[in-house]
């Protein structure tokens, strides 16, 4: 058996392992992988996400046991220090030797630190690994303790530098970007697009300093500032150097492989170095006199090396490598493709610029106007996938190429249907997936939806930039096969929930029959559409479930939770979990009187089980007399806002979590939504209220609340995402109002906020734009709609027992006062339970 040793376990080194184990022939090889970092390969492209969740596992390319499952020996934390090419051995820093038949070098690059005086001072970091980030986090916390308004600078206004700027901003430091060139992202953007990007970044709080050459780093032991000219000083307490990368090519140098003049190990189009048994891939490979610092070419190189070693010698690296990129920098779309800059002698440029919206689009077309040669997009890169494909495939462009980038005019024909692409068009450049492969997996029946396509082809699993296109292709292919992809709620309506929301709102319908007769398919409704319309009526008109009780889901119809034997359980509201002893005694006495099984629920309320239909109004009446109201445990509505005891009692508490939790619970009580909603308020970072497992969660921090949105427990647990930091009570309410209203307007039936948020195009960034920045101009409507619902709140139990008409439903028999005689209870730990189901 031959041995392949892979040196380097970064993204490209990992991709080599993934691609080789996918092939049958890999069974004939022993594969050993060395990684210098203490953990297996992770997604460095999305490193700044580490700040949001501090979850290194989430960034992993594959879990540690993936390697053993695929018979790969992964050795982390051990650097390979030399190669003995004569004996075909590598030597590690721990003086161990390993023999190889093939050696694959994928050591990547390290951050380039320019030789500036004082750069060794404490507080100067590079931005490359999770360990770098952890170091920065710890340091930032330290300086913030002394000076809450501390500033930090990033040296370098390129791609990575701006990412680092975001990281610094997320750490709560005042961010400054220092760039030597007169513009940001000098390698990807022209001057005008760079200016647009700069305006946008400045608008969200980044300070940008261009044309600055740093003479020295000031400070005694630790950094206190940067000096550019004699009187030109920027006071900062931390500096992140992001001035470019340098290949980690020492192994090539030591072992005498052919090297480039300015570094990098020379490879041919087989990824072979000057030693035929040694391959180099990724950011150490010098191919066509170039180092490629992007993920996609690195992945391609890994694929070529795999095929070459396994004997598929016809797989070669193409001469020209596509350097097109699309990314989201601090929430701003930036993309460039083909030739972003172009001399006027080669073609014409068409430029669309709108500085008020921070938008810039430029396309370069050939002199005859027939071919697209390249372009730049800043602020909105939705057209990127299509433009990139047109460029890659040399497709014809409209007579007036401006149509490609001008904002679409309503009713106008949009150019470029994904289905027009040739089969060989590469849709996912990270995983090298073509249109033909995506459509093929659906046509063969292997894939039936987007999730299948992604798992079968891996398209969209790299940078994710192609996802919208993969989605469009999937939907178009399914449609062409006659498979319906519409998400209409049931056979009675051709609309989804969001459509119906708009219809009911605009047409001001008041009954289910109004909606069904005017917009249905001629049937009589069913158990799917009736509760949806009922919920919409509640969300739009603040109707309670008493109004049209026959269209309500079972629980809403009887304002209680139906249990196993057809009896009901009753949960009164206990806002924030705060309850007086008198109320607690009242609950106990009522439970005793009606012989109800009593339990504290998962949402820490008190649930009384085993009530018959006839008993429900009697029980409510007594509860109401003691100051209780409906807890809506039966509704797709707000359940509880769970709280910890907070600063009222707790010696760690930073805010009054109980008081605020009660306020929030009372605000949103009774509001009907696509699914249940839960809240949590924790008085400090210890998070005793488990707020991050809720649809909305608050954690008190210095200076306000951190607001988390879109979490849940259940079958697919998900932590809520950090939405806003250090905000006051009023802002919290404003954001939650808008968030819930948006969710109520647009989610699918029975979709929790977590699933809704996850599938929302643009995700959390989009939510921030809509809720905080009011990008859609609907914030006022959302505020108003929510306030109306809040003002119209009525306790459904009180309403039900005060109306003889709605009371009719609380009899087991319509023609007898008797109760259901079919009920059998058996004893259980001093209480009772229904007889077991057979």
């Amino acid at each position, binding site marked *: 058996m031959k041995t392949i040793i892979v040196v380097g376990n970064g993204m490209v080194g990992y991709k080599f392992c993934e691609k080789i184990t996918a092939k049958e022939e890999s069974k004939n090889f022993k594969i050993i992988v060395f990684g210098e970092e203490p953990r297996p390969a992770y997604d460095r492209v999305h490193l700044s996400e580490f700040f949001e969740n501090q979850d290194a596992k989430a960034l992993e390319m594959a879990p540690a046991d993936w390697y053993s499952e695929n018979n790969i020996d992964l050795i982390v934390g051990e650097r390979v220090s030399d190669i003995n090419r004569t004996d075909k051995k590598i030597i590690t820093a721990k003086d161990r030797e390993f023999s190889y038949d093939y050696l694959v070098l994928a050591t990547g690059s390290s951050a380039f630190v320019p030789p500036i005086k004082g750069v060794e001072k404490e507080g100067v970091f590079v931005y490359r690994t999770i360990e770098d980030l952890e170091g920065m986090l710890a340091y930032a916390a330290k300086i913030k303790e002394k000076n809450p308004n501390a500033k930090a600078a990033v040296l370098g206004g390129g791609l990575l530098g701006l990412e680092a700027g975001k990281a610094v901003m997320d750490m709560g430091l005042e961010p400054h970007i220092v760039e030597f060139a007169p513009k940001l992202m000098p390698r990807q953007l022209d001057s005008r697009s760079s200016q647009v990007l700069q305006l946008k970044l400045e608008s969200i709080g980044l300070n940008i300093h261009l044309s600055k050459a740093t003479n020295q780093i000031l400070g005694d032991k630790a950094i206190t500032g940067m000096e550019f000219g004699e009187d030109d000083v920027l006071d900062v307490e931390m500096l992140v150097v992001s001035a470019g990368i340098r290949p980690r090519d020492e192994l090539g140098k030591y072992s005498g492989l052919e090297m480039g003049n300015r570094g990098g190990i020379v490879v041919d189009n087989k990824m072979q170095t000057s030693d035929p048994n040694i391959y180099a891939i990724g950011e150490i490979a010098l191919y066509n006199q170039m180092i490629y610092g992007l993920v996609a070419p690195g992945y391609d190189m890994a694929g070529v090396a795999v095929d070459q070693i396994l004997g598929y010698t016809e797989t070669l690296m193409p001469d020209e490598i596509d350097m097109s990129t699309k990314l989201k920098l601090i929430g701003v779309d930036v993309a460039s493709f083909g030739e972003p800059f172009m001399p006027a002698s080669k073609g014409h440029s068409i430029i669309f610029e709108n500085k008020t919206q921070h938008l810039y689009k430029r396309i370069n077309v050939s002199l005859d106007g027939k071919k697209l040669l390249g372009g730049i997009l800043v602020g909105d890169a939705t057209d990127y996938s299509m433009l990139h494909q047109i460029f890659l495939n040399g497709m014809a462009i409209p007579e007036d190429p401006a149509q490609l980038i001008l904002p679409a005019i309503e009713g106008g024909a949009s150019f470029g249907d994904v289905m027009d692409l040739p089969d060989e068009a590469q849709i996912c450049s990270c995983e090298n997936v073509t249109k033909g492969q995506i459509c093929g997996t659906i046509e063969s029946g292997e894939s039936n939806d987007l999730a299948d396509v992604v798992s079968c082809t891996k398209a969209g699993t790299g940078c994710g930039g192609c996802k919208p296109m993969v989605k469009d292709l999937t939907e178009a292919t399914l449609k062409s096969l006659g498979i319906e992809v519409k998400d209409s709620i049931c056979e009675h309506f051709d609309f989804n929930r969001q459509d119906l929301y708009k219809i009911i709102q605009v047409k001001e319908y008041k009954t289910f029959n109004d909606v069904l007769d005017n917009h249905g398919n001629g049937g009589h409704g069913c158990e799917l559409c009736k509760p949806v319309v009922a919920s919409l009526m509640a969300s739009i008109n603040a109707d309670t479930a008493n109004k049209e009780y026959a269209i309500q889901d079972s629980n809403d119809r009887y304002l209680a939770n139906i249990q196993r034997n057809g009896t009901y359980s009753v949960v009164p509201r206990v806002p924030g979990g705060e309850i007086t002893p008198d109320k607690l005694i009242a609950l106990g006495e009522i439970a005793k009187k009606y012989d109800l099984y009593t339990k504290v629920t998962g949402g820490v309320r008190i649930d009384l089980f085993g009530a018959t239909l006839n008993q429900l109004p009697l029980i409510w009446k007594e509860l109401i007399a003691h100051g209780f109201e409906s807890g809506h445990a039966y509704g797709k509505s707000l359940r509880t806002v769970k709280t910890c005891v907070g600063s009222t009692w707790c010696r760690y508490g930073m805010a009054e979590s109980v008081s605020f939790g009660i306020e929030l619970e009372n605000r949103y009580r009774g509001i009907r939504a696509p699914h249940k909603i839960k809240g949590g308020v924790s008085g400090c970072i210890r998070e005793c209220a488990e707020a991050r497992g809720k649809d909305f969660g608050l954690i008190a921090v210095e200076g306000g609340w951190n607001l988390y949105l879109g979490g849940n427990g259940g079958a697919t647990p998900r932590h809520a995402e950090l939405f806003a930091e250090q905000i006051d009570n009023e802002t919290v309410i404003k954001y939650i109002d808008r968030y819930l209203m948006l969710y109520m307007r647009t989610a699918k039936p029975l979709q929790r906020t977590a699933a809704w948020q996850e599938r929302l195009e643009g995700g959390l960034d989009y939510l921030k734009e809509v809720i905080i920045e009011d990008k859609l101009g609907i914030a006022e409507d959302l505020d108003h709609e929510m306030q109306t619902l809040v003002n119209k709140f009525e306790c459904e139990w009180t309403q039900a027992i005060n109306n003889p008409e709605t009371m*009719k439903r609380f009899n*087991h028999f319509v023609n007898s006062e008797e109760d259901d005689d079919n009920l059998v209870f058996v004893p259980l730990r001093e209480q009772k339970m229904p007889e077991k189901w057979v």
Partner: protein
Amino acid sequence: MINIVSDKYKTVKPEDVKVWFKAASTDLFPIDGGACVKYKDLQIAVFNFTRLNKWYACQNLSPEKQEMVLSRGMIGDHKGIPMVACPLHKKTFSLENGENLNGDLDAIATYPVKVENGFVCIGFSE
């Protein structure tokens, strides 16, 4: 015991009706909804299918878990067949012939219904 309960319910065809049981005033049944009628030791779910201007009756016992709940189910149609959905797990049954429309549970028993002088009457064979 379970079997004894469900054995009590047998479909009655219109021609086999021997007793028209005067159950309750029509206004006690919700529009496009149901209520439960007691007849001897039987529980019968009766539905006021207003959209079709029809009345239906069937056993109140859900054959799935033997609970007396069908009268509390939502009604409507599946591909044109009038149906009721059990409130426990949304099993649907044809109101015309009792057949389980979304599974292979036993069919439920159905009974003829007529309205006379504002009263709902259910037909039984005994």
